[in-house]
């Protein structure tokens, strides 16, 4: 199966947009899991550091300059496709922070445990919500920071809220 058949990016797809382990070791960094050429470019303007670029064709996919990106996460809620994530592997020795867009209710609260989901929607366990940032009245997309074990940092991309025992 390929992305075009089921909407799940493959390892090969992800390898094209994944920063190096050296870069991950330097701090949080943004990953644009945007693989298809569609007419869309708000991410380019979203980055205050000019780290996201695109050719003059708005159908191109974006490129993240991992050296310019400091993982601030502003781009997450600005991507109409909800396809940008930030991973911080320097959070602690055992845990990484995954930041992702969230548009469901209820919105989790800081400190709450939520069920982490991978790119296929599979439940990966319960993890603590570290931070919740509202996109504001107009944008409306929340950015959630979830504390996950290091080895799941590039697996978990969503949560299901509620039902934690």
């Amino acid at each position: 199966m390929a992305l075009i058949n089921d909407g799940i990016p493959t390892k090969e797809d992800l390898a094209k947009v994944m920063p190096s382990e050296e870069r991950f070791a330097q701090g949080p960094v943004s990953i644009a899991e945007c693989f298809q050429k569609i007419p869309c470019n708000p991410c380019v303007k979203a980055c205050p550091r000019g780290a996201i670029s695109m050719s003059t064709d708005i159908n191109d996919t974006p490129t993240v300059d991992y050296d310019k990106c400091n993982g601030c996460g502003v781009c997450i809620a600005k991507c109409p496709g909800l396809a940008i994530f930030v991973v911080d592997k320097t959070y602690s020795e055992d845990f990484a922070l995954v930041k992702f867009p969230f548009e469901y209710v209820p919105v989790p609260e800081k400190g709450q445990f939520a069920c982490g989901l991978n790119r296929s929607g599979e439940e990966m366990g319960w993890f603590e919500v570290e931070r919740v940032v509202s996109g504001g009245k107009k944008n409306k997309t929340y950015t959630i920071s979830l504390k996950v074990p290091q080895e799941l940092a590039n697996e978990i991309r969503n949560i299901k809220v509620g039902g934690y025992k």
Partner: protein
Amino acid sequence: MKQVEILVIGGGPAGLCASLAASSLGAKVLMCERDDVPGGQLVKQTHKFFGSEKQYAGDRGYQIGQMLVEKVAADPNIEVWTDTTVLGYYEDGVVTCEHEGAHVKIKPQRTVIATGAAEKFLSFPGNDLPGIYGAGAVQTLMNVSGVKPAERVLMVGAGNIGLIVSYQLKQAGVDTVAVIEALPRIGGYLVHASKIQRAGIPVRTGYTILEAYGNGKVEGAKIAKIDEKWQPIPGTEEDIKCDTICLAVGLSPLTELCWQAGCQVEFIKELSGHVPITDDFLETTVPGVYVAGDVSGIEEASSAMVEGRLAGLSAAASLGYGKDVAAEQQKAAMAELDELRAGPMGERIRMGLEKVAAKGGAK
């Protein structure tokens, strides 16, 4: 009989932008909308739009709709008739409509037809059971009327509408058991598919619905894998329990008024049905009659807005308005359309438009 300079039929993204563009050049516009509020399909689009800044990318569809409706309402050149269904276009150029309970005649100098599209249906046993909807209807129930339309949905069609409505159902607390798609590939934007996959909604390409069943209402469906000849593969049948089946199998342009006006209309598969033949300025083969949006071929709302602007500019310019600026603005709109259609997702549209040009329209 009401005399108007420019009549815009339809108050969706194309009609709103056509009205605003025509007015910006100084023309007087009457915009007729069948619904009780203008906005068309924008009113229920809760997701963020793609495109570039020029098409308000990043804003949610309903926010764009609201902004356009407010602009139109504040524009002294534009009169809006809501609850008004345009009924006919006669050979003497008179347009009739039902407005405030009366049959009203309008004589426009120019007309922009922006009637949009209707959802396609699908033939299968049991497709008349209560609980089978067009995906757009379910979206209206949820996002306009605030009604939870279902508990468990089977979505048929993985184009943008099928994917987006599945996402919005999830946001409303409704489970979509699966999105099935007969084609071997996802037709909509893959970011939408990825978004619902990671919410636990499987997208299954190469599957068709065999039948819906239930006692008086939908209780489930039989689906199966299909081969290259679109035939169900024996042994792959599956039973899906659901209380609602949403059909998101495409849209058909609503071209009735174009036919009545005597426009040359041709079947162009890539544009999703019969469409009026136009020139580059969106004028049909009937002088003074323009089209914009889904009526001229099914495309994204971003393109509908730009087409609306182009048709509005063209109609106003043909009346002598905006002599100094119209040509430049038309050129800019055309460039925007080219930009939106330049990628692989625009290939089908580009092919369709080539056929339109070959049929005699475009200059």
